[in-house]
C-alpha cells in the first residue's frame, strides 16, 4: 500500500510540476533558438527556397523577434504547419510564435487561449479564376466548384458571400494550399479562393500564371499578424513591440542600410528607437539595442514589405492599406518613448 500511495504522490507531483512553467522569454533564451510556426509554403509570406532557407513577410516577423531577443536573426527554427495544425501547435507550446498569415477574429482571440499581437498585413479574401471562363466578377460565379484550404476563415466567408448573393457553390476542401493549387490547375474547380495576397503568391506557382486572373472583388477583412499564447504578457509585449519598432523605423526613415549612421542622429525619437536614451529595452527585459538589432538584421517594415511581397518580389503587390498612416495606408504604431 505504501508503494501504491508513493506512486500516486509521485504522479501527482509529476503532473502538477509541469503546470508551472518558465516564461516564454526565458525558455527561448535558454534554448537559444526561437521556434516559429509558419505555413507549408506560401510565396511572399513564408516559403522555403531551393536551399531550404525560409523567406517571406511572416518569416521576417519571426526573424525580427529573434534579432531582438537573441541578437541573431538566424536563430529561428521554422515549423511548417497546415491551417488545421497551427493553433494546437501554439497552444501546446510546440512553437513560441505563430506567424502564418493568420486572420484575427473574435473567436480565435477569445476562445482559443491565444492573443493576436498586431496586424502586420491587412488583407481581404478574393477569387482567382481561369481566363478561359471569361468571368469578370465574383457575382457571376453561381454554381461554380471552388477550391479552398480547410480550417480557414475563407471557408466561412465564402459561405456567407454566396448566401448573401443567393448563389450556389460546391466547396472542394483541401488540406494544404499546394493541394488547392493542384486541384485548381487540374480543373477540379473553376475558382480558387483565399486571401488576395495569397492568390498572387499561388498564381506564380501555377505552370501558366498568365492563364489565371484574380477577380477585383474583395469579400472580407483579413487582418493578418503574429499570434502568441495567452497568459504571458511579457512575451506578448515583446512580439507586439517588435512589429511596432519596424513600423516606427520606417516612419522615421531608419533602414538596415543607414541604421549605423542614424546612431549619430540628434532626433530624440530616433535616439530612443535605437536605445541611446529613454527606457530602452528595460520594460521587456531585453537589451538596450533590441530595436537596433531588428532594423540592422531584418530591416524596417517598408523594406520587409517591398523585399517579400512588394516591388522587389515577383508578387509586385502595392502597399495599399499597408502603407504608413501618413502615406495613405493604415499602418500605424504607437510611439517608442
Amino acid at each position, binding site marked *: 500500500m505504501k508503494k501504491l500511495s508513493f506512486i500516486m504522490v509521485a504522479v501527482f507531483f509529476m503532473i502538477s510540476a509541469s*503546470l508551472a512553467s518558465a516564461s516564454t522569454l526565458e525558455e527561448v533564451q535558454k534554448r537559444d533558438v526561437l521556434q516559429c510556426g509558419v505555413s507549408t509554403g506560401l510565396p511572399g509570406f513564408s516559403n522555403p527556397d531551393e536551399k531550404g532557407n525560409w523567406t517571406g513577410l511572416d518569416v521576417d516577423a519571426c526573424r525580427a523577434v529573434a534579432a531582438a531577443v537573441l541578437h541573431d536573426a538566424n536563430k529561428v527554427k521554422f515549423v511548417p504547419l497546415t491551417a*488545421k495544425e497551427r*493553433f494546437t501547435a501554439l497552444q501546446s507550446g510546440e512553437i513560441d510564435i505563430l506567424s502564418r498569415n493568420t486572420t484575427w477574429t473574435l473567436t*480565435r482571440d477569445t476562445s482559443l487561449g491565444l492573443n493576436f499581437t498586431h496586424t502586420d498585413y491587412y488583407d481581404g479574401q478574393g477569387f482567382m479564376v481561369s481566363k478561359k471562363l471569361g468571368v469578370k466578377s465574383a457575382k457571376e460565379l453561381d454554381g461554380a466548384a471552388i477550391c479552398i484550404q*480547410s480550417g480557414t476563415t475563407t471557408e466561412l466567408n465564402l459561405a456567407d458571400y454566396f448566401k448573401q448573393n443567393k448563389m450556389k457553390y460546391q466547396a472542394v476542401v483541401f488540406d494544404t494550399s499546394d*493541394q488547392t493549387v493542384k486541384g485548381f490547375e487540374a480543373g*477540379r474547380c*473553376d475558382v480558387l479562393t483565399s486571401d488576395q495576397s495569397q492568390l498572387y503568391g499561388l498564381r506564380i506557382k501555377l505552370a501558366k500564371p498568365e492563364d489565371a486572373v484574380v477577380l477585383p472583388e474583395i469579400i472580407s477583412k483579413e487582418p493578418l499578424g503574429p499570434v502568441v499564447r495567452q*497568459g504571458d504578457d511579457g512575451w506578448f509585449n515583446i512580439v507586439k513591440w517588435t512589429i511596432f519598432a519596424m513600423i516606427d523605423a520606417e516612419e522615421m526613415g531608419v533602414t538596415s542600410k543607414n541604421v549605423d549612421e542614424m546612431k549619430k542622429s540628434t532626433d530624440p525619437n530616433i535616439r530612443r528607437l535605437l536605445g541611446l536614451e529613454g527606457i530602452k529595452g528595460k520594460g521587456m527585459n531585453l537589451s538596450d539595442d533590441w530595436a537596433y538589432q531588428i532594423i540592422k538584421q531584418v530591416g524596417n517594415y517598408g523594406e520587409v514589405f517591398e523585399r517579400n511581397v512588394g516591388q522587389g518580389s515577383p508578387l509586385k503587390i502595392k502597399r495599399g492599406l499597408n502603407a504608413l498612416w501618413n502615406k495613405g495606408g493604415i499602418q500605424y504604431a504607437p510611439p517608442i518613448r
Partner: protein
Amino acid sequence: MGALFFFALFDLHMATVEHPQKTAWWNNAHNRALLFQVLLAIGVSLFFAFIANNTIHNLQQRGISTGFAFLKQKAGFGIIQHLIPYTENDTYGRTFIVGLLNTILVSALGIICATILGFIIGVARLSSNWLVSKLAGIYIETFRNLPLLLQIFFWYFAVLQALPSPRNSLHIGEKFFLNIRGVYLPSPIFQQGFGWVAGAFILAILATIILKRWAGKRQEETGEQFPVFWTATGLILLLPMVAYFATGRPLSWEYPVLKGFNFQGGITIIPELAALLIALSVYTASLIAEIVRSGILSVSHGQTEAAAALGLRPGKILRLVIIPQAMRVIIPQMTSQYLNLVKNSSLATAIGYPDLVSVFAGTTLNQTGQAIEVIAMTMAVYLTISLTISFFMNWYNARSQLRER
C-alpha cells in the same frame, strides 16, 4: 500495481483452511485480495479523475473553451457531399453526422469491392493458366508494396484529373456524363404505385429463399437437382417487371443538365469518392488476395482429389468443398484487413473527400478550436466502428468454424 494485484490473486489460491479462526481479518487471504482490488480500483479511478480534472482546469486557466456546447452552434461552411440534407446554416453537430456517414459510405463500399476483387485475384493467382496466375501475381506485388497515400494521389491526380472539363464531358446519350467534376447519373423519381414494384421484388426474394430450401430438401431425399439459380433469376426479374407495367410504369428519371459551370440535377459521384474508393479497394484487395490464396492452399490436396473422385466439376469443387474449409483460415485475417480499410479511409483528407477526419476533425476542429472534445469524439467513432466489425466478424468466424461431432 499490476504485480501487487497478481500476488493478491495468487494468495487467494494458496489460502489454507487449517486455522480459519485464529487469523485476523486482514490476514485472511480472501479479504486481503479483495482489499487490494478495491484499493487498486479506487486508485485507478482517482488517477483518471485527476487527469480529467487537471486538463479541464488547465484549459480554463489558459482561456481555452471547453465542453460540448459548440455542437449546437451554427457551422457556416459548405460540405460537397452529404448523404443527409445539410446547408451552411446547420450545426457543428450535424457536420459530425455528415462526416461520419461519408466515412461509413466509403468504408462499406470499400469493404465490398475489396472483398470481391481480392477473392477474384486470389483465386486467379492459383489458376493453372500461366498468364492469369502471373498477371494476378504482378497485381499483388505492385499494389501491396506501394504506400497507400501515394496510390490515393495517383488515382486522384494522375488518373481522374486526366478527364475532360464539364463542357467537353464524355457521355452516353444525354443521360450519363463523365468529366473531371465526377460521374453524373440520372436519378430515379418514384411516383405513386411504385410501392407495388418494390413489393413484387421483395416477394420474389422471399419466393427464392423458400425455393432454395425446398430444392435442398428434395436433393437430400431424392438426389435430384433443381435449377434454383435460373428459376430465381427469372422470378426476381419477371415479377417486378410485371408489376411495373401493370401499374403503368410509375418511374421517371431526372437527367443531369449542364448549367453554367457544372451539371445540375441527377446523381453525382464526386471524383474524390471515386479516387479514394478505387485506391482503398485496389490496395486492400491485394492483401486480401494473398489471404485467400493462403486459405485455399491450407485445404489439403486430398480434399480436391476426393471431391473429383465423387464426380464433382472443378467449379463445384471450389464452391462446395474448398472455399467453405478455406474460410476458417481466411476470416480471422479478413477482420484485420477490414479494420485497416476503415482506418485507412481517414487518408481521405489528403484529397479533399469530406470524411469524418476532414470535416469534423479538420474544419470543425479548426473553426471551434476545441481539439480535445473533437478528437475524443472522432476516436470514439473509429473505436466503435472497429469494435462493431470485430464483433460481427468474430460471430461469423465462430459460426463457420469446424464443428466436431
